[in-house]
């Protein structure tokens, strides 16, 4: 049952967005985020929406998935929306009751902020929808590798992320087994107060940790047997190569960023 959880919501595919160099995709995501934060007017934000929609259409990921990615952050959107609505007191007053005052500026900021957060989440989830975790890790390693000069452990961090990703399904399976074993011995994990249920987790977590350490030791041994000695002098099976389409994508993104800046100046709202 727990085995079905997918980590990272990667949708394999062969669209142009999937085939972009992961480093470029990270860069595009950063440009997109800058775009959203630079935009002050609705028209400028509109340029961000167009950019997002084009990317989604090119990726072949159903728009439904875009909406699904927003679902978990609805409470945050509501929370910031309400704060903005009640605490911004400039502009024409639309409604007043005792000390509660709702102004035009408040409504505008609420809608603006909500749109911005939604766009932010949709854009970044497109990155994880179209890039497998392992490719993403690889890209992060290569982007950070210049920092090795200042002793930043880029390779080590990427290796840890890879191993963590690799062991998530294994450890989930193991948790399942331990839970069944404890249930078979009469452990009760589904009833009682929260405190009681939290306590019932201890007999699951302890064996899980013990086994994780044992696995770590064996894995380290197996890695040593296969001549692992850190990132020095290491080559890779898959080389990342940028293609013309990567530069084209960056150019388009920069154009959109320019459009946002221009629209900020000249658009009415």
């Amino acid at each position: 049952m727990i085995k079905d959880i997918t980590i990272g919501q990667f949708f394999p595919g062969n669209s142009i967005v999937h085939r972009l160099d992961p480093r470029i995709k990270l860069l595009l995501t950063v440009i997109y985020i800058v775009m959203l934060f630079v935009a002050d007017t609705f028209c400028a934000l509109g340029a961000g929406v167009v950019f997002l929609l084009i990317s989604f259409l090119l990726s072949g990921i159903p728009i439904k998935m875009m909406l699904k990615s927003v679902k978990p952050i609805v409470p945050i959107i509501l929370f910031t929306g309400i704060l903005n609505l009640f605490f911004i007191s400039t502009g024409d007053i639309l409604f007043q009751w005792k000390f509660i005052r709702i102004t035009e500026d408040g409504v505008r900021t609420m809608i603006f902020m909500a749109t911005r957060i939604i766009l932010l989440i949709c854009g970044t989830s497109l990155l994880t929808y179209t890039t497998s975790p392992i490719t993403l890790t690889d890209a992060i390693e290569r982007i950070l590798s210049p920092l090795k000069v200042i002793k930043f452990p880029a390779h080590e961090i990427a290796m840890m992320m890879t191993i963590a990703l690799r062991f998530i399904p294994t450890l989930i399976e193991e948790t399942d087994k331990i839970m069944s074993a404890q249930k078979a011995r009469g452990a009760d994990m589904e009833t009682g107060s929260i405190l009681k249920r939290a306590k019932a987790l201890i007999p699951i977590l302890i064996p899980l940790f013990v086994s994780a350490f044992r696995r770590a030791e064996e894995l380290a041994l197996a890695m040593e047997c296969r001549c692992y000695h850190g990132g020095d002098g290491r080559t890779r099976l898959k080389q990342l190569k940028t293609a013309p389409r990567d530069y084209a994508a960056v150019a388009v993104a920069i154009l959109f960023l320019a459009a946002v800046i221009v629209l900020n100046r000249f658009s009415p709202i």
Partner: protein
Amino acid sequence: MDKFIEIKGATFSYVDEYDDPPTKNTVIKNVSLDIDRGEFVAVLGHNGSGKSTLAKLLNAINLPESGDVLIEGMNTKDESRLYDIRKTVGMVFQNPDNQIVATVVEEDVAFALENIGVEPSEIRRRVDEALKTVGMYDYREHAPHKLSGGQKQRIAIAGVLAMKPECIVMDEPTAMLDPIGRREIMSTIKELNASGVTIVLITHYMEEAAQAGRVVVMNDGEVIADDTPKRVFSQAEMLKGVGLDVPDVTDLTHALIKEGLKLPDDIISEDECVDELYKLLKKG
């Protein structure tokens, strides 16, 4: 010319520093053993007989406390040759889950080659070759956790094989597998050996040891028998004395011999047993 693998009077012990005073548990006692190129050696022994520790002496995971271990003349104590030794003697462990590093099959097989700095195009070629050898080429883009135990273990073997080692030491590679997985691994091992790779198989399954060319029996840190499977298994009493069994067919033929049937006492495989019984019945 140097011998391929030469263990000269090696002794090894684990020291438990947390005990007060520290206790020393000697698990390998003055063992000497030579292994020739292309051999298929099975090392038998019950739990705690030192067979796994012996395996780890072969690629410098454990260093002997006294005595020497030489791989193609390279001493495992010589740190400058460490990676040469590990490239020559690969090692496969019991639990396939705990030796797979990457989340994609081919990336895992490439791991060792990436570590020793092989060119990307050469990595590609060797990874494909290793995967084809173990019959897992069609699964090269799969996630390892979705494969069966036997398949995962074959991936682990491919990961070692990609280094082109001359010898592969397998530490109970079938212990966590179901019978189907066990059969898959045994046939992979035999194919590898036929193609010239030296195999050292640590096991406690008599049926597996019977398929080797030579059987070394360990007990309490010492080698107590070192011969062909037929000759080792015909000493059923000695094996039982050290907590080991003989293959079921050997047990059966020995029981039949006791009952007065005229059978050879060195039968170790089912086919052989069937043949001999058939001959006997035909004679009537």
